[in-house]
């Protein structure tokens, strides 16, 4: 369909009354693309770090996410086991993520950790996260070897570890972090704000449409 492509581009250029960009104008748009300037960033996303964490917690809760605080990473297995027991969860699906593998799970006897991608019918998953965005209480997760995307969508309950040191104010801060990784774009970037929902039946909000019915954020005070 190269002729279709040509025709679309020549239509666009005819409308713009010019040939392909060149010279100074081309440099201008190239520079803009490379500099990726931000538009106005809301004042509420530019708070000092401590207030950002409070804003994250407030906005995430407002979006119906549930927060469990962790005083240390070592406390994670016990907290997760406690949550699992209270909610009838016997199996947690998780990738083989070193931050979880290095923990001592011997006390969490009631729940098993399965290292695989998620399948239909899974009750709960446990994943890490790349960062949190205070502006709207949003989690950012990146797909990768230890973070398959299905874990974020198939299970009924999604437990996510968020280190409070990774909470940023605005989405722009998060893009900065992503670029600083220096690995280009992963296949999938998920921005998740609360559990799945739909208002398609009479505009009345129901939680748990196709994605997780509950989103549990394990907020690590690091």
């Amino acid at each position: 369909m190269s002729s279709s492509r040509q025709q679309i581009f020549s239509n666009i250029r005819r409308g713009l009354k010019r040939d392909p960009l060149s010279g100074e104008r081309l440099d201008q748009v190239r520079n803009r693309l490379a500099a990726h300037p931000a538009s106005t960033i809301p004042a509420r996303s530019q708070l000092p770090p401590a207030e950002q964490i409070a804003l994250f917690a407030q906005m995430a809760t407002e979006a119906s996410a549930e927060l469990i605080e962790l005083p240390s990473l070592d406390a994670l297995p016990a907290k997760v086991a406690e949550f699992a027991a209270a909610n009838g969860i016997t199996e947690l699906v998780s990738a083989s993520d070193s931050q979880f593998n290095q923990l001592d799970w011997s006390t969490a006897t009631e729940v098993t950790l399965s290292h695989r991608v998620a399948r239909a019918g899974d009750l709960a998953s446990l994943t890490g996260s790349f960062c949190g965005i205070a502006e709207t209480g949003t989690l950012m997760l990146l797909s990768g070897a230890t973070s398959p995307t299905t874990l974020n969508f198939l299970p009924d309950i999604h437990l996510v570890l968020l280190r409070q040191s990774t909470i940023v104010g605005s989405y722009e801060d998060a893009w900065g972090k992503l670029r600083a990784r220096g690995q280009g774009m992963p296949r999938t970037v998920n921005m998740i704000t609360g559990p799945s929902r739909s208002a398609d039946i009479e505009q009345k909000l129901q939680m748990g449409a196709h994605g997780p019915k509950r989103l549990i954020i394990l907020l690590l005070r690091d």
Partner: protein
Amino acid sequence: MQIHSPEFKQRAGDALHNAPLQRALGNLREGFPVKRAAAVARMPEFEQLRNEGRDLKNHILANLDFYLEQFEEKVSAQGGKVHWARDAEEARRAILDICRNANAKTVTKGKSMVSEEINLNDYLEANGVTPVETDLGEYILQLRGDHPSHIIAPAIHLNLDDVSNIFAEKHGTPYTDDPAALMQEAREMLRRQFVAADVGITGANFLVAETGSTIIVTNEGNGDLTQTLPRVHVVISTIEKVVPTLEDMTLFLRLLARSATGQEFTVYNTLSSGPRRPEDQDGPEEFHVVLLDNGRSEMIGSDFQEMLRCIRCSACMNHCPVYGAIGGHAYGWVYPGPMGAVLTPKLIGVDQAGHLPNASTFCGKCESVCPVKIPLPKLMRHWREREFERHLSPAGFRFGLGVWAWFARRPALYRWVNRSSSWFLRGMAGKKGRIRSLPLGKGWTAWRDMPAPQGSTFMDQWKQQQGQRQSSASTTKGKS
């Protein structure tokens, strides 16, 4: 979707007398505008963001060829493929070819109005591929053989009992009118489809040139399952959706959620860049982006270029008194409300959709809530002018306008007729000051009385006021 726009008047009339539809539309009128207003009030920078959104879209359109080339280059560099489609037929064929190469029997679909624009489902079905809609609203509509009446709340024209009935009939489950139970039913039914599908088709809210990414914005998570589980992911989108950078996309995301549903942020904002990487454990092995033009490139440099700024938030229809009274199906095609009244005549022809830009009170509410400040009333007026120029408006309308123009060019006569018809109407109204039935205006007075003109005519008042101002100005001068 089949085109029914020429029957607009009949369909609008039917809609006004359709009691269940009127009940359903009540949910819209009471919901979206209130939620939007609350979200906007929480964001003091919102007006500034609207101005920046408008300016950024103008910048993109002025450099559209450059950004589309950048996007394509990045998609290819990550192992994806861009397919260019001039029209619906080319887009459908590109998608069918991808499905055939994947030996696909069923495809799951995230919500996409562009797929409605190219009538994709019927085409796939006719060619042996079964499409399964996975957005809850779209799924309900597919079971009913129905079509969306709103661009983000597709089943807004239905009531709870419609959903209960169709689920009981098609799923063979006991009747329930519990919305939570209905949603659970759909969730379980669609789980099987997500896993079984060979190809997943989603739309895209934006295309990011910098990274070669497409983004979908959903609350349900159906789009994510659609694009993660099958072996092949196809994105169907249009050329004007490209944005330069992640930061630029961010500006539009801030505007979109608040303008659409009044949320601070939509639950799932998902960027897809190419197929799965070698180290990934899941995700599609193929990534295709079908970019449709369908008349959009011809809007550049035309009177209608500003319409290409649209980010499909639906705020214009949510606030429109006409849409609120008749719903989306009356408009007879994919895009209803004010944005549809401007876009539809371009996409299917003003001869087919000429009624749509006429169905406006020009109250201006649509423009006042548009996140990218599209002057929708002005653009509708352009269509009215085109329609008149091309002699498409009805004979009675043209005759009336001709008579008015004849008088308007003869000011003395015009003023005399104005004055005497005002006297005449006052006489007709009698003591009550109201006219129950007006000659040539029976359609109007059938539903309400016409109040009699009060006082003198505008021209007379103007003349009097100017006279007063002049005499007071000369007095002031005399005193100094």
